[in-house]
């Protein structure tokens, strides 16, 4: 990837920061998300909670659906490709989506390789559960990282674990001397130059969002207080009792994350949150966060 392409791809992610990216499955939902102040929408056929409930192989969405959502809003539109499915990514690039999410929420197409994202012009966001995984995705060309969390559960504990793990691993790197970074790179299976960069920056070199299980304004504000640059909300909005109010409230809480009075105000009168599933009750083969490596 050229230096200019990297600047453009990581630069668009900078514009999402402090914002909420919302899963939508119809034009109407996309308009509700935009009206609530979403910084982008993720166009897909089924939200993760439905993918989980209905089972089967989950694939890239129908191009007609993506076109209709691209046409419905003025904010950036993202879409998901399966892990390793480079032709789905090629198709999404021709549709003119603004970002591709190579996502564990869909069924992986390749259990060995991820997409070589460096050969695309369109930017990619990828999920990660730890620092090594995040840096391997950046090596492959990802311009933005998100926690995986456990999508479609409404249980924020996995997203929390991933963000805390990444933050703790970064802090540990910053405490190492330069000559210890070679072994650190080996231990987390990531390239030395990125490990060195993270040690000096004290953060990932790309924008880092949290995803997977965010369902309330308090969930979003907690992730922001822990240092996330922004949040993805999947099933949490449109599987709740009052999507319009909840979408606005999560946006409000993400902007004013360090003001508990504002988050409390945003938390009032939202109706029912999505019902959700405790991650502990999800059998291991159905845990999406374990897809990818």
């Amino acid at each position, binding site marked *: 990837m050229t230096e200019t392409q990297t600047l*453009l791809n990581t*630069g*668009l992610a900078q514009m999402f920061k402090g914002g909420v990216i919302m899963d939508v499955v119809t034009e109407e939902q996309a308009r509700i998300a935009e009206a609530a102040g979403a*910084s982008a929408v993720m166009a897909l056929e089924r939200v993760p909670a439905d993918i989980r409930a209905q089972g089967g192989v989950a694939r890239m969405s129908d191009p007609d659906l993506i076109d209709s959502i691209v046409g419905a809003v003025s904010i950036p539109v993202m879409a998901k490709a399966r892990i390793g499915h480079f032709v789905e990514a090629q198709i999404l690039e021709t549709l003119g989506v603004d970002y591709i999410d190579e996502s564990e929420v869909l069924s992986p197409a390749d259990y060995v390789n991820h997409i070589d994202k460096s050969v695309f012009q369109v930017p990619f966001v990828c999920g990660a559960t730890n620092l090594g995984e995040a840096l391997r995705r950046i090596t492959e060309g990802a311009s933005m990282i998100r926690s995986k969390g456990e999508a479609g559960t409404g249980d924020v504990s996995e997203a929390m674990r991933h963000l805390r793990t990444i933050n703790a691993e970064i802090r540990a790197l910053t405490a190492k001397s330069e000559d210890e970074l070679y072994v650190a790179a080996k231990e987390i299976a990531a390239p030395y130059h990125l490990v060195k960069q993270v040690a000096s920056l004290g953060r990932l070199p790309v924008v880092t969002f949290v995803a997977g299980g965010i369902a309330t304004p308090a969930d979003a504000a907690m992730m922001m207080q822990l240092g996330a640059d922004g949040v993805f909300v999947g099933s949490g909005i449109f599987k709740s009792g009052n999507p319009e109010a909840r979408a606005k409230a999560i946006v*409000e809480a993400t*902007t004013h994350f360090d003001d508990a009075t504002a988050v409390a105000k945003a938390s009032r009168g939202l109706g029912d949150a999505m019902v959700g599933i405790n991650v502990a009750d999800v059998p291991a083969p159905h845990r999406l966060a374990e897809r990818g490596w």
Partner: protein
Amino acid sequence: MVRVGVLALQGAFREHLLMLGSLGAEARKVTRPQHLDGLDAIVLPGGESTAMVRIASGTDLFAHLRERIAHGLPVFGTCAGLILLADRLSDDSLGGYERLGGLDITVARNAYGRQGESFTAGLSVEGCDSSFKGTFIRAPQIIDFAPGTEVLARHEDRPVFVRQGNVWGASFHPELGGDLRIHAEFLRNVTATVTTPAAAVLPRSGAARGSLRGRLRPAVPVPGS
């Protein structure tokens, strides 16, 4: 020290804060009207203009900000910030939402295209002695401007960086790419208008480029590099 606020409702406000801070300004986030107190200037960052106007709606932040800009507070809007400052938009996509205005121009949102059409361009910028690499991301286009507007940079014959008195606007992102010269120029103008002697901290033009770029490197991480 010059005190500069950066509107922090959403978007790339951190990049502006880092750049302003590395140039010696006291830079702080603005999310509430009370954060405007004591500011010598304000920057409106890139991000999603739809998100910003919707987050601001129902609060009196924009009303306060508009009043201060009308009273001469220096303001610099980049990309989404330019959209907030434009007196007119070419479409109704932000219809019904309060913006700021202050720049007598017409702007077309996303007119430079979606992300696939995003680009960089070497710009000849007034006050910069060599080309400035402008980063245009889903950028808005200035399609009309009032007579008397200072055009500080053009791309393919269209203005991309303009100034009307205390109001500055750019359709690209000087906060990306690590070149501090445009921020330095804005701060020099702010310093010139601030009456307190303590505000005079910035080097004169010419000295800025080499020394400030050198200083920037450790302070502002360039993502993905």
